């Protein structure tokens, strides 16, 4: 990560625990990743690996309790926002860092019109008048390509299709021109064709305004298309971090390798798709040493004892595997 410009947003060794009645569960176990202006960072991993939790920690929308940030930093332009007072963080998430969610229907308030929900950003944070805010809401709806925006501004969320609702979420998120947009599986709940439209829209909007985009997904196809960098997460840790081309051509972690191998390819007929063996670990009782060892083809005795740190394996490419070099050579 050395040649990159100073990152806009960086997570540094973030540890988040969920407090249970009997034991605590570490949802994030020292997570680090960063994103620069104009860059798209994809975070991939199986469900439950901590992708969303890391984003919620940034936005300050973790359920506290039971969640608790135990250690680490979240740095915006170099300063740790976890140390900021709540009021300042609030302004930050309104104006600099925004987020959209997987389920746009439940994420929009059912009893207010979409216009009101977009206009609220301008009214609360910019102190604009009712009518000015409404005008800007229409502008935002047009910007996210909602047809007939002027007429639809007074409609309620349930009157829109899934794709249109996600556009509204995007309109709310981008209304104050933030620098970072976190998209938490924004297309998972949508039809395939609509998925492509939303991804295209996000990409366009990003290009227009030098937005840093953090895209949380488990769709490697999308990653290959839009991401600049990829952070692969497993069991609450980033296990590999690399530019997208490097990751796809020479993965340096057995887990990434497994993910790559499970992507179906055109022209590859007749052979069974290899799937990752086993199931992801339960976070309440994680395996000792490297969390991936029970499913790993490269496992050695050391993997049971020592947690491999995320370390650079080549320029701008890190992996958390004791045998990363061997993994890269094998590919």
């Amino acid at each position, binding site marked *: 990560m050395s040649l990159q410009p100073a990152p806009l947003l960086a997570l540094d060794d973030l540890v988040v625990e969920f407090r249970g009645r009997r034991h605590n569960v570490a949802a994030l176990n020292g997570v680090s990743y960063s994103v620069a202006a104009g860059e798209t960072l994809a975070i991939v991993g199986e469900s439950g690996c901590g992708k969303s939790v890391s984003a919620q920690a940034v936005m300050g929308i973790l359920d506290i309790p039971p969640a608790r940030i135990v250690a680490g930093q979240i740095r915006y332009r170099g300063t740790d926002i976890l140390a900021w007072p709540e009021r300042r963080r609030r302004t930050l998430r309104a104006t600099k860092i925004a987020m959209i*969610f997987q389920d746009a229907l439940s994420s929009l308030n059912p009893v207010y019109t979409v216009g009101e929900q977009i206009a609220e950003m301008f009214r609360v944070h910019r102190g604009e008048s009712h009518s000015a805010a409404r005008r800007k809401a229409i502008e935002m709806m047009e910007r996210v390509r909602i047809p007939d925006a002027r007429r639809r501004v007074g409609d309620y969320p349930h009157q829109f299709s899934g794709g249109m609702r996600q556009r509204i979420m995007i309109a709310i998120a981008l209304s104050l021109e933030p620098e970072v947009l976190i998209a938490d599986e924004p297309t998972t709940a949508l039809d395939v064709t609509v998925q492509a439209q939303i991804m295209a829209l996000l990409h366009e909007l990003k290009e227009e305004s030098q937005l840093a985009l953090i895209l949380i997904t488990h769709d490697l196809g999308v990653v290959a298309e839009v991401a600049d960098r990829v952070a692969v997460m497993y069991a609450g840790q980033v296990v590999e971090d690399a530019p997208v081309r490097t990751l796809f051509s020479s993965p340096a972690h057995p887990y990434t390798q497994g993910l790559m191998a499970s992507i179906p390819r055109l022209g590859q007929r007749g052979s069974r798709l290899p799937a990752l063996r086993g199931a992801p670990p339960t976070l309440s009782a994680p395996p000792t040493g490297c969390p991936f060892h029970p499913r790993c083809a490269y496992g050695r005795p050391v993997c049971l004892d020592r947690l491999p740190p995320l370390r650079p394996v080549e320029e701008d490419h890190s992996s958390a595997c004791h045998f990363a070099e061997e993994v890269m050579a094998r590919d």
Partner: protein
Amino acid sequence: MSRYVLRRILQTIPVVLGTTFVIFAMVFALPGDPIRALAGDKFLAPSVIAQLHKEYHLDDSLPIQYAKYMSGLAHGDFGRDFNGDAVSALIRERWPVTVKLGLTAWVLETVFGILLGLLAGLRRGGVVDRGVLLLTTVVISVPALVLAFLAQFVLGVKLGIFPIAGVADGWPVSYLLPAVILAALDLAFIARLTRTNLIENRRADFVRTAIAKGLGPWRVVGKHTLRNSLIPVVTYLALSFGYLMSGTVIVEGIFNLPGLGNLVFQAIQRQEGPVVVGVSTLLVLVFILTNLVVDVLYGVLDPRIRYD
């Protein structure tokens, strides 16, 4: 919206027809002489029975009887008592007391029910929350009847803070205690409903969005949590007014307030069956009307409903 309201009104018509039919069938159409049944053990002179048979059209065939019964209701005719007086005249005399009592109870349960529910829900698991849960469990478990006696005995007889019965002291002194008892059950329900909805909505995705939008805590709770949480509460409040009307039978009976409930109460004691049925029918119709208001209100508050 107006289509929605119209549809609700149309849907209410079969309900009114159905309930009145049930009343008519159970009271007037079962085998045996309905007038003798309504009189209980009371002796009625044959002339009175004959007169009432005529009043209730009991010599006609059942369909004609029902038609005449319905047209009577439509014209505000709720039957006659054994003295031949119109029940509607008794109702006209009594309704102000009941409305005063009902409204007082309704305001009490609205203000205190919502307030307690909010206090409990905002600090879930805290002292207030535990207190409210305990208190509402007790109120829900102790029948209104017992609650009324308890209040009458402790606050009226022992401490002498409130009059035990009657309306001699006027509003609010004479009405306050009965109103509290009348409101108690629904107050407890409203507190619980408010609490549950508030807790549920605080974890809703759209509240998370509101926080992510950088809104302050007051706006997040006040604008994005409360309105959604209070929709079921407001509709229950409207429904509750109908329940209160039927609760007046017991409360006005025990506290001797001369309203409609008391009219029913005394008519039961005096075995004036026709009065019981007539006034109760009116109260049922009021209840159905409040149900209609609830539906319309729901449509006003929740856009998802009215665009169905």
